[in-house]
């Protein structure tokens, strides 16, 4: 009954099988390309063609497009309008709106920036859809990320749904004692403490228990830890990562050359 907080969708696809670090590199490459290449149409091609194709390869196209429509498009549209209207560049005025001038240049500029944002958010969405958070964290810890950092990330994802479930039980328990949570505002305001009290006390006690439990498993030990869960890192992954890095380098050089 626990709700999941991560976006991850468990499927078997070429993208799911990639090493988490490779996927992370891919995301960074996409974003840097969108911002760095001197060619005007790069972000557009990435956003409209390349990333959707990746989502199809990753077998998460349906989820990707629902998230994209709900989350990314409204934000990008807003950004596009704001930048088109308030960017004081260009001469050729397309239309007036009171004191605001919309020029061809500002439209082009805003369009590109909106596309860049789409690339950025959608690349990350794709990453989250195809990567399990704990897989990402165990891979990164193996590569030297401090365990404490990984713990904070992962436990947040786990604790929130647990607290939600706990809050639900507390509400049920107090309503069973005749606590009115449904009628007038004043009555409901008075019912805050009986609901929040057990949640806070309980969570504090849980934090302590958690700390003891993970320490019992040698959390702060300085020894190198082995992992039961092997995360594959094939030679293909390595080749892909190096080529992606090369691509980033090329786009940086091109960018400098151009300006």
């Amino acid at each position, binding site marked *: *009954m626990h709700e999941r907080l991560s976006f991850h969708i468990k499927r078997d696809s070429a993208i799911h099988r990639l090493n988490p670090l490779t996927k992370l590199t891919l995301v960074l490459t996409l974003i840097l390309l969108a911002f760095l290449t001197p060619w005007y149409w790069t972000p557009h091609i990435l956003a409209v063609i390349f990333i959707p194709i990746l989502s199809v390869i990753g077998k998460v196209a349906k989820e990707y497009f629902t998230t994209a429509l709900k989350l990314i498009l409204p934000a990008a549209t807003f950004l596009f309008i704001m930048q088109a209207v308030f960017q004081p560049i260009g001469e050729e005025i397309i239309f007036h709106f009171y004191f605001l001038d919309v020029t061809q240049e500002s439209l082009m500029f805003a369009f590109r920036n909106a596309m860049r944002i789409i690339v950025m958010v959608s690349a990350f969405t794709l990453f989250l859809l195809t990567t399990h958070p704990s897989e990402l964290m165990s891979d990164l810890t193996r590569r030297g990320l401090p365990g404490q950092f990984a713990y904070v990330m992962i436990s947040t994802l786990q604790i929130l749904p647990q607290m939600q479930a*706990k809050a639900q*039980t*507390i509400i*049920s*328990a*107090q*309503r*069973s*004692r*005749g*606590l*009115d*949570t*449904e*009628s007038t505002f004043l009555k409901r305001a008075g019912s805050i*403490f*009986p609901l929040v*009290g*057990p949640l806070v*006390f*309980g969570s504090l*006690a849980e934090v302590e228990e958690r700390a003891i439990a993970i320490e019992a498993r040698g959390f702060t030990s300085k020894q190198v830890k082995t992992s039961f869960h092997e995360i594959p890192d094939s030679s293909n992954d390595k080749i892909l990562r190096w080529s992606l890095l090369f691509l980033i380098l090329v786009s940086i050089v091109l960018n400098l050359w151009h300006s």
Partner: protein
Amino acid sequence: MKIEINSLHFTYPTGLEAIKGISLTINSGEQVAIVGQNGAGKTTLVRHFNGLLKPTSGSVTIGDWDTTKYSVAKLASRIGYVFQNPDEQLFSRDVLTEIEFGPKNLGYSKEKIDELVKQALVWTELTDKTETNPYDLSPTWRKMVALASIIAMDTPIVIFDEPTTGQDFVNVSRIANVIAELKKQGKTVITITHDIDFCAENFERVIALSNGKVLLDGKAHEVLGQEEILAQTYVDPPQLTRLGKVLNLKETVINQEEFLNVIVRSER
């Protein structure tokens, strides 16, 4: 107060069908234990009694109240429900305020509240701990505070969800005493339990659930003797029942008293 359940079905929003057609009547003053494997639907069933869950189809009536027509806060005047984990309901600075919370919500008079609280304290042996903060008490005593806070509401029906889990022998007998006192007052007690010996010693009627349906329902005697059927829901008959079977006793025995009686009679 009578509980009537009529072809109850319940499906969780996740699509899990937890109750698949249950019809039951629990009469006023009955002591009922509900047993069955984890996930059999025990908690889901009793949460329908005080309206925390509403039927997907079918109906549950408490006395003359259909649970779909009354709020949980309203139904709390007829049904007390002790949750499994006391930490999910304790919030007051001291035991006394905690126990007064329920009866106050029900709007009883000051005198009546005092009387009910006093009685609850005596039954749960908390009289000398009224000033203590519930969180300074051990988990076993916190369980008693939770118990007291519900029985002080003086509801005609009381539900216990796994009252004996993690409790030592002394505390289990304390809980058994509370149930006996409630019985004397003519109240209905419904208990979910995995503790089959506790069930055999304190309850007249046993309902075994399996997979959202009633597997067995009847006198504790009849139900707890059916070893093969109970095995379907992973419930073992009480130890003495099994011992009686090994000894080839003529009758099914479920608790010490019965066991000794049968032995004494066969000696003669």
